[in-house]
């Protein structure tokens, strides 16, 4: 009998220590959400490089009794990388190394399109405050409209860490849905003649301009907005690696190996913020709806300013490039190209749209910086 009793006690102990004993309905629902995200990433190929680790992180976050965030280990290090804003600037280093600022330097007016698209950020901020979110939380929700994942995570970590999971998931989900969200708005706001406008070829940009731009932009923006100095400086450092012509190895590492490694950590860590107790709330649904409002508002505002610039330039600017002002590099620029080419098959807007597209990255970082400067407690 003693042996049988000891055996049963041991089995009970194993069961009580297992995750099954603490497994909740919320965990089950969130694992289903993770599986759905995995299907979207692998089956539908929606941003698979980001959505796959986010989805898997979401599944891992809902394993009970793991102590991932309480005990020292790789999971805690990944969490710290997000909590202390280490990963977003490193991602920006890679983004900078991948970005060609040539179209922006050749046509600096496109910076205004990048600024106009930030309107969605502030519409969403106002909407969030109307729904009862604090100004800090609303600013973090609004930045979803910037369509810039690292900036959204950076902002959420600083302003509303409790909403990080929902904000990151909304930001990356909408970024992957840019080809579905933007075209109807672009078509609704423009005539076929406007969409068919062909733009002149951009001027050549000298190496001097390509070298001076990242260095001086980092200095100017960092002095103006110190809260985003880390993001902007790393973006411009990465771009300097690319343009200098003497740091090819650093440029290659930044845009490939380092960026991929940090993406794995950042995306997995983001998914790991999606535990049932933090994610299954009414606030999450509100954030997802506000994110859509921000995205649609930003696209509409960019196209609207594009129309104004089209009129002012005597029909030399295609308003469709305005929608690329929401960052989502280079997806938003590709959407401008795609919609423009449908209206006029000989239209090539991609390079022109890259100007507002990279301006949107800077614009979103500036918007984040101004909100942090104004609203941070």
């Amino acid at each position, binding site marked *: 009998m003693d042996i049988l009793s000891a055996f049963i006690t041991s089995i009970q102990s194993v069961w009580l220590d297992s995750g099954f004993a603490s497994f909740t309905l919320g965990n089950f629902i969130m694992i289903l959400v993770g599986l759905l995200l995995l299907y979207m990433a692998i089956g539908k190929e929606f941003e698979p490089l980001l959505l796959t680790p986010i989805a898997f992180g979401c599944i891992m976050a809902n394993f009970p009794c793991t102590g991932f965030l309480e005990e020292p280990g790789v999971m805690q290090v990944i969490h710290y990388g997000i909590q202390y804003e280490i990963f977003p600037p490193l991602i920006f280093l890679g983004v900078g190394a991948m970005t060609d600022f040539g179209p*922006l*330097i050749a046509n*600096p*007016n496109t*910076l*205004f399109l*990048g*600024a106009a698209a*930030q*309107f969605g*950020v*502030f*519409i969403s*901020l*106002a909407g969030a*405050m*109307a729904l009862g979110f604090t*100004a800090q939380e*609303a600013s973090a929700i609004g930045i979803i409209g910037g369509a810039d994942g690292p900036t959204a995570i950076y902002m959420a970590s600083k302003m509303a860490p409790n909403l990080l999971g929902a904000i990151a998931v909304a930001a990356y989900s909408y970024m992957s849905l840019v080809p579905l969200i933007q075209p109807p708005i672009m078509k609704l706001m423009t005539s076929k003649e406007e969409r068919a406008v062909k733009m002149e070829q951009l001027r*050549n940009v*000298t*190496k*001097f*301009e390509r070298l*001076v*731009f990242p260095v*001086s*932009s980092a200095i*100017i*923006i960092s002095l*103006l*907005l110190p809260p985003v100095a880390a993001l902007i400086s790393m973006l411009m450092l990465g771009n300097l690696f690319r343009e200098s012509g003497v740091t090819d190895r650093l440029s290659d590492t930044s845009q490939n190996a380092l960026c991929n490694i940090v993406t794995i950590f950042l995306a997995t860590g983001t998914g790991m913020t999606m535990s049932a107790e933090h994610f299954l709330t009414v606030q999450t649904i509100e954030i997802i709806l506000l994110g859509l409002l921000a995205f649609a508002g930003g696209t509409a505002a960019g196209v609207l300013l594009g129309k104004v610039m089209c009129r002012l330039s005597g029909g030399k600017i295609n308003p469709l490039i305005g929608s690329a002002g929401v960052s989502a590099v280079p997806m938003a620029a590709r959407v401008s190209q795609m919609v423009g080419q449908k209206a006029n098959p000989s239209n090539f807007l991609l390079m022109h749209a890259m100007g507002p597209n990279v*301006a949107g990255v*800077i*614009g979103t970082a*500036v*918007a984040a910086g*101004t*909100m942090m400067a*104004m*609203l941070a407690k």
Partner: protein
Amino acid sequence: METQNPIVIMLINMTIVFAVLFVLSLYIRLIHKIDPTAKAAAAPKAAPKAAPAPKAAPAPVVEKGIADETVAAIAAALATMGVGFSRVKAIRVADRPGWGGAARTEGLTSLKMR
């Protein structure tokens, strides 16, 4: 920050974003103006010197006893492999019977044509 009015926050932030990006656009124009390399890049480059006429490649040395048809067949085979006939220095009868010849034949037949 005192104000909690979302419209005021929105207006202030949009103004700052536009102002910062406007300053940046002015700065980009300034860089273009002061660019010391712009004139050099804009100036038409001098026409490159005419390349000297290539010397006629020496005709390959063809050993006695090899028929013209064989030379033509070798030239055609080399051409299909992407080798210009002008690079061929000599065509000689292989004088390695036995293992050497077998090895050469094996080497040639094992080559994969792509």
